[in-house]
């Protein structure tokens, strides 16, 4: 595969942050509070550490193979056929994930902003834009993330800070009142929100300088962890943990609480949507890019452009297929379990194989 465009380490970190912070941002406090109650923040910090560990495994493994992509070094490690199976799993996972993310964001957009627009039209809007970007390769994607992501995270934090007036941080007490078991149970659900760094398997070859990748990437993951912890603690402080559980979008409810003094019109949730759509679009773009990159790599094509255009109708059809919101979240959950396997399980397995082969002097 020919590599035409390159990205810097900082761009890679921003890209990984953008892909991790996705649609879940509006809803994740709900499932987390359901499992862990007021201790969700502990689970988030633990999950952050797990993600950091996994991403380090991926980077170190890549380093052993001169920062190649898994598509290229996979055959040496697990053999050609198993590698194809892994790649197909990744492609399916990326495509399903993209479809669900697009569908979820289209559904929410329909609910809060475009009441009478058919959901298919919103889907098309997001997908056409994303595909356009994907066709142009990793460097434009990285620049897109770089220019968008810091701004929207900043706006989101500013908007959320306005809710501090209603926050009662005591609501987060007691710490570990029910012991560690609920926190452990909540971790799989939190890991859903951390998915995305598995793209490191495939993005490493695009790096310009490979020296400081671990350090800069850990900054990225720590930022995501702190950001999630902040939203979690804030939603419980403002809404109470029982209320967070029953809300479909706790983060929007948080914003609906804000009162801007002296204004008759006080609808900050439109700002929220304005912030959130880029979050989901960046996720969609990178996953779609990942899928096309893998497919083209698997088919030994020179570049991914044609493939990404061919994937477009598949993603669209998968996105319109589920009948209602509950089915969407069901599929999304199953996909996320697959994602957890591929992002947290696979690096461990690959590392053990690497260790074994190294020990047997096969590599």
């Amino acid at each position, binding site marked *: 595969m020919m590599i035409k465009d390159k990205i810097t380490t900082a761009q890679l970190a921003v890209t990984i942050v953008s892909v991790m912070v996705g649609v879940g941002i509006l809803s994740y406090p709900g499932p987390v509070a359901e499992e862990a109650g007021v201790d969700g923040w502990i689970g988030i910090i633990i999950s952050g550490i797990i993600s950091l560990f996994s991403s380090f495994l991926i980077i170190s493994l890549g380093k052993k193979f001169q920062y190649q992509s898994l598509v290229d070094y996979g055959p040496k490690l697990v053999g050609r056929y198993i590698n194809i199976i892994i790649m197909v799993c990744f492609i399916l996972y990326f495509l399903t994930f993209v479809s669900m993310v697009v569908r979820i964001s289209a559904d929410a957009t329909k609910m809060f902003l475009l009441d*009478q627009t058919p959901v298919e039209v919103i889907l098309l809007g997001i997908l056409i834009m994303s595909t356009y970007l994907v066709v142009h390769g990793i460097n434009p994607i990285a620049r897109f993330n770089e220019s968008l992501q810091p701004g929207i995270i900043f706006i989101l934090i500013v908007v959320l800070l306005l809710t501090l007036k209603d926050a009662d941080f*005591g609501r987060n007490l*007691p710490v570990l009142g029910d012991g560690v078991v609920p926190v452990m149970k909540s971790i799989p659900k939190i890991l859903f929100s951390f998915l995305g760094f598995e793209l490191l398997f495939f993005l490493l070859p695009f790096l310009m300088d490979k020296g400081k990748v671990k350090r800069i990437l850990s900054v990225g993951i720590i930022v995501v962890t702190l950001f999630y912890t902040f939203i979690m603690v804030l939603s419980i402080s403002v809404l*109470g943990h029982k*209320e967070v559980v029953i809300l479909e979008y706790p983060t929007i*409810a948080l914003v*609906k609480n804000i009162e801007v003094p002296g204004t*008759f019109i006080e*609808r900050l949730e439109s700002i929220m949507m304005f912030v959130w759509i880029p979050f989901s679009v960046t996720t969609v773009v990178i996953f779609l890019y990942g899928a096309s990159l893998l497919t083209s790599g698997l088919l030994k094509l020179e570049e991914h452009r044609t493939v990404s255009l061919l994937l477009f109708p598949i993603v669209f059809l998968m996105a319109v297929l589920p009948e209602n919101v509950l089915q969407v979240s069901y599929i999304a959950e199953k996909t996320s379990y697959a994602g957890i396997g591929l992002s947290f399980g696979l690096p461990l397995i690959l590392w053990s194989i690497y260790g074994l082969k190294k020990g047997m002097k096969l590599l």
Partner: protein
Amino acid sequence: MTGNKFLKVTVVIILTSFITGCWDSVEIQQRTMILSVALDKPESNNEEDRYDMTIQIAEPNALTEKPIPGTEPVWNLSTTCPSLFQCVRDNATEVARPSYYGHLQIILIGEELAMEEGIVDSLDLFFRDHEMRRRTKLIIVKGKAKDALETKHPLIPISGQYISDLTQEAVNKTALIPITFTVGQFSSEHESGADLLLPIVYVRGNHVDMSGGAIMREGKLIGFLTGEEVKLLRVVEGTFKKGAHISSSDKKNENEPSSTFEVKGMRSIIHTRIKNDKPEFKVEVLVEGHLAEDGFKGLISEKKIKKMENELNKKIKNDTLEFIKKMQDEYQADVFGFGEKLRRHEYKYWKNVKGNWEEAFAEAKIEMEVNTSIRRYGRIKK
């Protein structure tokens, strides 16, 4: 070449249809803003009808400086129906423009409905629909809720706006209504299973009087508190903030004027302790403020200020304890949030008692410690 050009033009034309936007736009003049909703139990004997919903539609120009002469500023429209969403749709048969609930300021609920049916079912729509905000005020009306909307304030033409402004004023300035007064706060407290208070409003001829609280348990109205009692509740919570006042009753005879103290700040700390398997609470209240009225009872001195502070301490303490006792004996309603304090600080114990917290609360031992500071006494030294 020409074919290529044709293709380009076609693509551009198709693309323009995507950027027009405003697919769902409704012009603001085309909308009717529903500013207030009043819910009552219907008077008719029709079994099916559960609600009597009155919506108040504001004439958009009445919100601005120049109302159109000859039009009424508001229109109150009542419908009876089995569910609220149906009421909303039924209203559409009478109002010519699409109604918009995004700026709903206030939901008034009649005493009878709140007492017999509870308010949770009726609020479902207000929680579920995306147009609704959590800041919408939720108020119980003594008597019929729609009567409160029928009042005509001489200065504020829209009665819903009037009651909404009044709530904001009352919660900050007088401390005569509880701080839980919005749909969002109600939902949070209700979900956590706590008893809570909602503001109550009395209809007095052409205006309303907002003072006091309605005790809600599991969404049902179980009793009323007076404004003075709500004030004591807010002393315990420490939310009794600026502007409110306390009169001390150190009168030696009937004709002597009483002293009044203006509260400028208050903080409360609730300490929890478990002793002999019973919860004990110690409420520490710190108050500071000004002397507002003293009736010229002699020159101010350090000694006199200390004496007044002591009297205030004693008065606040006794009144509050008496009120807590009443809540423990009469309603067993923990509107103070003592249960929540136990959850935070004594979680193991709380897990055992939360099933029958009402009884445990009734037997809880509660102590008060009040510390008042009179910081200033005004322009005269007498």
